[in-house]
């Protein structure tokens, strides 16, 4: 079953087509990786899904219902949570309070919200940092806090924007485990990632964007065998 349907999605900024006629589905329970070179339109696609942008053309359907043009908080209420590529911690709040603020969404009482926050902090390995101010965290943990906060809204669908960028190898492994754990909880994941090793390790399917257009879609094996993709994207990596 399709959890999310992207239908003829286009987003123009002036003359620039950040997205042009993009179509694909994200199936329930899978991890779908969205890859592509810098400026390909990946973050723009997330912004169109979560309501920060109202797409110029096309539709986004969540569990069969259109969500195009809804405000971000409405989209989150429906069960879609996201993280930010450029992390946006609530700086002068502790790690625990960051997560608690999100947990209130489906748990209006303080006790209920605290229970959810406890669980999420343990799950993401941030429990020992719970009393720290979030602006004092190292980047790796701030990236994880983004995930923790999104999870605390108890979503069915999670959008992860470069949650692995800037992590050291040890942190990468921790985050890979966390994302596998998220999948095991039955949460569908769409993840933007540059790290090919991570992509190949965790994703069920891959969609490739280039200059705002979808140029390929398939399993990790299919994608790494695709010449167009290798040229547009993997080529850079391999060459570098």
């Amino acid at each position, binding site marked *: 079953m399709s959890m999310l349907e992207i239908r003829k999605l286009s987003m123009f900024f002036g003359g620039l087509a950040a997205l042009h006629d993009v179509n694909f589905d994200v199936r329930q329970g899978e991890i779908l990786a969205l890859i592509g070179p810098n400026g390909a339109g990946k973050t723009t696609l997330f912004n169109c899904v979560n309501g920060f942008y109202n797409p110029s053309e096309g539709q986004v359907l969540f569990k069969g219902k259109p969500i195009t043009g809804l405000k*971000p908080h409405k989209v989150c209420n429906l069960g879609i949570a996201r993280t930010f590529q450029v992390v946006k911690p*609530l700086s002068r709040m502790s790690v625990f309070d960051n997560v608690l603020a999100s947990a209130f969404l489906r748990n209006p009482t303080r006790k209920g919200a605290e229970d959810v926050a406890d669980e999420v902090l343990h799950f993401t390995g941030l429990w020992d940092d719970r009393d720290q101010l979030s602006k004092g965290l190292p980047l790796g943990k701030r990236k994880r806090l983004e995930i923790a906060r999104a999870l605390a809204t108890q979503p069915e669908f999670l959008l992860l924007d470069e949650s692995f960028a800037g992590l050291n190898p040890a942190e990468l492994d921790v985050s890979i485990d966390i994302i596998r754990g998220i999948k095991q909880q039955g949460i569908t994941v769409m993840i933007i990632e540059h790290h090919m090793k991570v992509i190949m390790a965790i994703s069920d399917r891959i969609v490739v964007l280039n200059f705002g257009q979808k140029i390929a879609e398939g399993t990790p094996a299919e994608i790494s065998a695709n010449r167009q993709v290798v040229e547009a994207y993997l080529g850079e990596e391999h060459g570098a």
Partner: protein
Amino acid sequence: MKNNLAPLIVLAVLAALPLLGLNSYVMHILILSIMWTLAGMAWNLLGGYCGQVSFGHAAFFGMGAYSAGLIHLHLGASPWWGFLASLPVVALVALGMGSVVLRLRGPYFVLATLAIGEVLRITCENLTDFTKGTLGIMITRTWVEKTQYYYIILGLAALAFIVCRVIVHSRWGYYFVAIREDQDAAESLGIDTTRYKTIALTVSAMLTGLAGAFYTNYMGYIDPGVVFSLGEISILIIMVVMVGGVATEWGPALGAGIMVILAEYIRSLPLIGVAYQTMFGVLLIVIIIYLPNGLVGDWPVLKRKLLRRGAPA
């Protein structure tokens, strides 16, 4: 809630103060300090916790003051009913204002609040049939002594303290701070930012209106130039919170005490006394530079500095 002891002790001490037989001037200073504490706590909810800086809280203070004045003038009712009358009036205006103005972010919101305070003042000055314009409204004060007024404003401030404390520790409070820290993040985490900013504004406005209604009853006379004043109300409320500590529980009380005493002192000085608003402006700049979190917020920093200076001596 964890710590109820400190507020109870403070309340007990304040409640006992009049028993010392303080003179009428000291009582006046205390009453004003507590009234500004009330207004400061109200502003702090919106400006401190929710991060929406208002330069127009005189609008709500003035509406509260005029609620009391007008029901007396037109209906012959006791101006004490102004407390009740002000609540729906102020709430409605805040809700209306919120739904329009709170869509604006950053400097636009600040400018809009500034405009609203001034617009209300000018309106009030010109609706002479209804408000008596710049002539103002006079009421007969209920008591000659200060004690009764003292206990009334103390009760109101205590109530506001409880309201703020409950809100700050609840879901609303967390949403307010989340909005202050990052509006986009808050929105994407399911928080209806316009709605919760409007809630913060409305509660803040209603509490400020109560301070205004008290002002009418206590002072016995109001006119638009005073109760809708940018300098003497809107800016003073901000100063109270900035000096004491933005987004701190005790900041407004400390700031109010300091500002009231300071205002009295500066005004009593020969020559420069008339320029007290300028002096406040300078003070505000100094505070913003050296104590951006106010006395309560920057207390740890302040303590360290003082200790270091004291050590070698």
